[in-house]
């Protein structure tokens, strides 16, 4: 995924944020699964 970057000086650069976003999704999945496991373990 390629996006436009606009700096303070209006210079336009390309920066790939795919890994950043994939990392967020991965962490969310891990956190939600973790919460579900806690619920399963302690939920009596």
């Amino acid at each position, binding site marked *: 995924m390629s996006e436009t970057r606009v700096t303070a000086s209006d210079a336009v650069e390309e920066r790939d944020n795919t890994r950043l976003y994939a990392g967020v*999704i991965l962490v969310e999945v891990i956190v939600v699964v973790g919460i579900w496991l806690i619920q399963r373990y302690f939920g*009596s």
Partner: protein
Amino acid sequence: MHLLDWAVVVVYLVWIVWDGLRRSKATSEVEGYFLANRSLPWWAVGLSVMATQLSAITLVGTTGRGYSDGLGVVQLYLGLPVAMIILSVTLVPFFYRARVFTAYEYLERRFDSRTRTLASFLFLLSRALSCGVIIAAPAVILSIVLGWNLTLTILGIGLPTVLYTMVGGVQAVTWTDVKQMAVIIAGVGAAVAVLLFQLPDHVSVGEALHIAGTTGRMQALDFTWDPNKTYTFWSGLIGGLFLMLAYFGCDQSQVQRYLTAKSVDEGRQSLMMSAYFKIPLQFLIPMIGVLIFVFYLFHQPPVLFNRQHDAEVRASARAGEYLAMEEAFTAAFEARRDAASALAAARRAGGAGALGTTEAAFREADGRVAAVRGRATALVRDVTGDRAFGDVNYVFPTFVTERMPIGLVGLIVAAIFAAAMSSIAAELNALSTATVIDFYRRLWRTGASDAHYLSVSKLVTGFWGLVACVVALYAANLGPLIDVVNRFGSFFYGSLLGVFMLAVGSKRATSRGAFWGLLAGMAAVALVARYSSIAFLWLNVVGAVAVVAIGMVISLLDRSSTRKDA
């Protein structure tokens, strides 16, 4: 409160006000005052974004919900990480490229001035009211729990915030937010530590959580598909996604946070901080409530945590009934305490049969305690006529003031102040920006000097601070008004998101389609809210979808009539 606790609160207030005031040196022009000349680092902006969202209502109300219902409230935030990614790819670069001060400024460039005016007006109306509620809600609770004067408590939260926001602008807001977030995290950490240390010797942390789980309080995720339930996995993931898109993408109090970042990428990174940490933080806060529930299994709580009407009920004709309830509560508490100890012992010993029996006995004992509390609440409502009476929001402050060690009480009261002040400051700053940029500079006084607009911006910040304090003084005496304000927010959030979806997502959308689509979307939300019992999170979806659908139909009709005319 002990003198040491007072000292902690006073030191916190002086520190924050001093830190905010010294930021005035960096605010000699309008862009510096409102956007810090787009110079702030991503981590400071990210903490400011989190501090703005985490108000005192969240801190106190969510712990109370954890105590009464468990961890389910965390589901509200399940859509947040995806919302942050969508915003980073769509609206954030649009706002940066357009070099706007307000989100609504972008609507004029894409559509027309009336759509911008309407959107900005809706923001001003709802945020001015909610700003008052954000001051009033913790002030009411602290004044009742600590016996403080309500008016002085409102002014104690409101005036220092107005002062540093007015003088220091967005620089003051952001850098005090960073410190306030640290105070909040320290307070939350201290509460968790004290709760864990105060567990009885014969109950481990694991056993305590198992006991809470027996009552359903450890159920964080509810996968049932019921649109009338407020917090489910699906309402959080889908409804929450729309709510977070609207809040972080269309609400000036959040948009202005990340517009202060050095670059579009630093703006994105600031949002990613919430994407990573918000769900764990919002899991931890109701967990405090669950731990308070466990704590009060072994230490007797008051029958009702909200003692606002205590004296009135004891002086009423039904005082004897109330005293009998207190005695019944003590007996029910003792039975539940013994049942909880037996349950912990059964867990250690193992054996499914004995465990099942002790679990059933504990649930029954917990039910008896809840029944007495329910009867006591009904009695207070009958005697006082206060139909909105409840005590969920009083659980955490009561625990803090009665059970926390000296010094830490002050820290947590300071954390409640910090949570309220950080949200108020961001909102005052955003209210001032929208007023000056979207109305004053555009409609009333065009072409004046930067120094003039800077002076007006500071005066307008002070004006909105005054309005917020006045609203807070009224809201404090009108409990249900808080619900009205919260509901009002959900009426316009989804619709506003729909307009931005039209702006960014479709080249065919016309200004007429956007304007009438926005009005129709709000009408659709009002109708759905009036004639169905759908949970409020879904209203954001209804609003956004209605605006996009109606807006596109009007736009297509608009274009076809334009072509015919041509």
